[in-house]
C-alpha cells in the first residue's frame, strides 16, 4: 500500500457519513459506534471537525505494546490477527491518536483495514475531506499554504470588458520583520 489515507479537517462538515459506511462495510449494521473512524467535533473555541482514523504508522506504537504480537505491520498496513488477539486493549491506550476503537458487542478492537485498498469512507465522503494520497505527495497542500502565508497577498480590482475582476499577487519581502 503506497497510498496514505489522509484527513483534510478544513473540508470536514462533521456529517459522520464515514462512520456509518464503515460500520456497514465491516459489521453489516447501521451503528456509528462500530466504526474504525470517528469524527471529533469541538466548539466554539476552537471550532474543529476532524475524522480520526488509523494512520498505519511506520513505527506503530500499537504493535510495540501488543503483548501477544497480534498486531504487525506488513504491505504498508498495520494488521490485527484476530485469532491471536486477546482484547486487552493495550493498543487503544498506546495509540497517540486514539484511532483504535472498541465496542461491547465486538470481540476485538476495531481498527482500520483500509477496506483492502479502496476505503469506503473515502468513496462516500461528500466533502472530499478524506483522501488517498501517495506518500511522496503528503503535505503538499500545507507546503503551498505555508509559502503563500510567507508572502503578503495583495488584491487589485480591475475592469475587463466592463466586468469587474480581481487578481491576487504576492508582494514578497514587504512583511514586517
Amino acid at each position, binding site marked *: 500500500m503506497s497510498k496514505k489515507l489522509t484527513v483534510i479537517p478544513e473540508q470536514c*462538515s462533521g456529517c*459522520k457519513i464515514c462512520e456509518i459506511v464503515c460500520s456497514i462495510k465491516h459489521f453489516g449494521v*447501521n*451503528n*456509528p459506534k462500530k466504526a474504525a473512524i470517528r469524527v471529533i467535533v469541538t466548539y*466554539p473555541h476552537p*471550532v474543529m*471537525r476532524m475524522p480520526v482514523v488509523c494512520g498505519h504508522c511506520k513505527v506503530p506504537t500499537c504493535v510495540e505494546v501488543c503483548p501477544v504480537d497480534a498486531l504487525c505491520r506488513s504491505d504498508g498496513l498495520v494488521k490485527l490477527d484476530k485469532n491471536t488477539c486477546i482484547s486487552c486493549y493495550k493498543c487503544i491506550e498506546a495509540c497517540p491518536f486514539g484511532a483504535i476503537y472498541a465496542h461491547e458487542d465486538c470481540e476485538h478492537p476495531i481498527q482500520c483495514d483500509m477496506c483492502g485498498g479502496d476505503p469506503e469512507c473515502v468513496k462516500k465522503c*461528500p466533502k472530499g475531506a478524506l483522501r488517498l494520497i501517495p506518500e511522496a505527495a503528503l503535505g503538499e497542500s500545507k507546503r503551498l499554504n505555508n509559502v503563500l502565508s510567507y508572502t503578503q497577498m495583495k488584491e487589485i480590482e480591475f475592469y475587463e470588458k466592463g466586468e469587474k475582476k480581481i487578481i491576487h499577487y504576492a508582494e514578497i519581502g514587504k512583511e514586517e520583520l
Partner: protein
Amino acid sequence: MTIKSGYFKKHLHVNLTKRSAKRLELSDAFIEKYIGGRGFGAKLVWDNLKKHKFKIDPLGPKNLLVIAAGPLTGVYLPSSGKCSFAAISPATGLYGDSSAGGSFGVELRQTGIDVLSIDGRAKELSILFMDNEETEIISMPELKGKTCLEAEGIILERLGTHCVHVAAIGIAGENLVRFACVNTDWSRNAGRTGIGAIMGSKNLKAVVVRGHMDLPVYDIKKQVVEADKAYKYMEEHKYFKLWQQQGLMNVIEYANEKGILPTYNFRDTVFSRHAKINGTEMVDHYKIGDSACFACSMCCGNICLVKNGKYTGTVTEGPEYESCAMLGSNLGVDNFAAILSANSLCDELGIDTISTGNLIGAVIEGYELGILSLSDIDNQEISWGDEDAILHLISKIANRQGIGDILSDGSRRIIEKWPEMEKILLHVKGLEQSAYDSRAGISMGLSYATSDIGAHHTRAWTIAKEMEEGQNWSDEEKVDIVIYHQTLRPLFDMLGVCRLPWIELGLNERHYENFYRYVTGRNASLEELLDCSKDIYDLTRLINTSLGTSRKDDTLPYKVYARPALTGPNAGKVINRDDFQKLLSIYYKKRGWDNNGLPPDSVKKKFEN
C-alpha cells in the same frame, strides 16, 4: 405486511416528580399507525390530554414532553439526523412541535428506545442522563443561569466524557420565556413553540444521551443501494454545490428578488441593502467552515467568524435564512456581523430567532408609530438598524427584565397589554410568523392560518410555487397544494429525516417509500404513509379543537389583510378577507371537517386506543 424491523419497540417514560423511569413496550399497531417522530408525539400528547380531562397548563407538571426520532433516524440515507419535540405549547396553548437536526436524535435512538416522554417536575434543577439502557436523573443546581454552551461544558465535565449528545435549555428556558428553544449540538435548535420553556418548567436543564446500540434495519443491502442512489442524485444536482457553500443563506437573495423578504417588521418585502446580508457576503467575509447534520451531504450549516470590528471573535454556526431575515432585514440591520452576534446571543440564551425577530420588529414599529411610549420601552430608544439596542433587548427578553418580561410571554400578552399592537404584530394562534411574507400568495396565508402549531412555514411552504406558477390556479388547486404539503412535509418529521433533500434538490419522495420499506420490512406504499400523515394532521387538529380552537382562530395577522407592502414586485398586495374565508371553507370541506373547522366524531374514534 407488518413491521419486521426498524424499531426497538420501546418507550421510555420518565416522571421527574417521582424520579422514576419506566421502559414500556410499543405495540405493532401503534408503530404502524403513528410511524414515529411527530406521529408518536401527537398521539402521546393526545392520550395525556385525555388523561387529564383536557386541563393542562403548558408550563405545569402535567404537560407531557415527547422527544421522538423516527425509524429512519441515524440510518445511512440522506440527512437522517432529525428528532421531534412535541408537547402542549406554552406559546399557543395548543399542540406544538419542533424538530432539531444534528446527531442528538441518532444517539437517543441508540440508547434502544423509539420515544422518550417526560412529565412531572424535578425538585431542583436537574439533568436526565440516558446511558444506553440506564437512566439517571442527576440534580445539578450549579447549572442555574448558565447558557446552553456553558451548561453543556459543565455537564461534560461532571460526566467525564465528551462522547455524549446534549439537548439543553438556556437562561430563557429557565425563565419560562414562551418561545424558548432547546439547543442541541451547539446550534441545532428545536426552535419553535416554546419547548425550552417546558423543560424549564420541569426543572430539566438538559437531556443527555449516550447510546451504542445497532439501529435495527430489515434489509441493509437494499437500504445501502437506495441510499447510494439518493446521494448520487443529490451530488449531481445543479444546486448541490451552492447548498454546500451557502446553505439556506442562498434564500435571502431569492426572497428579496421575489418580494417576500420580511423587512422593517413586514412593512416591506424587499430590502435595499440585501447584498450586505446575503449568502455571498457571508461566504466572502465570514464563513470559515461547513457544518452538517448526521449523514447529510448538503451541509447547510455555515460556521461563521467575525474577524474585525466590534463583534470580533463572535463565532457561531449560522445564521440560516430565517434567523438572518428576522434579525436582519426585518429589523433594518444591514451589518452581517451584528446579525451573527444576535444569532449567537439567541442560541446561547436559548430563544427562538424567528419569534424574537418578530417581537423586536413590532416593538420598533410600535415605538415609531407612538403605540409604545418611551417609558414603555424602559426609556431606552430603539430604532431600525440600532444594533446595540436590539442586542440589549434580546438579553432583556431572555432575562425577563423591563419590557422584556412582557415580550417574553409572546404576542398574545403584548396585545393584552397594548391592544393597538394587534395591528403590527404578525402571529397566528400566538405563534409569530416565519420569514416568508404571505400577502403575495394566498396559499401561503392559508398555510399559516391552518398550520397546527401557528404561523410557521414547516407544514406547508407554497409561496414559491404559487408565485412561479400560481397565476391561473383555481381556489381548489390552491387548497389542494396546501393540503398536499401539510401531508407530505410532516411525513419527514415522522420518519425522522430532513426534508431539504426533497424540497431543495428535488430528491424523489419515492426514495423515502423505499427507505421505509427496507428499514422496517413493512410493505407500505407512499400513499399509505401519506394517509398516516394525514391522520396525524387530523389528530393535531383534534387536540387543538378540543382545547377550543375553531374557525375564528384560523385567521391571519391584521397586516396581511390591511397593510400592503410598500415597494418591490408585490407592492400593494394584500389578502382579501372574503377570498380567504372562501378558501378556508373549501379547505375544511376537503379535510372533511365541518364549516366551523371541527373534525367529525369519526376522527375522534380513530384515536381512541
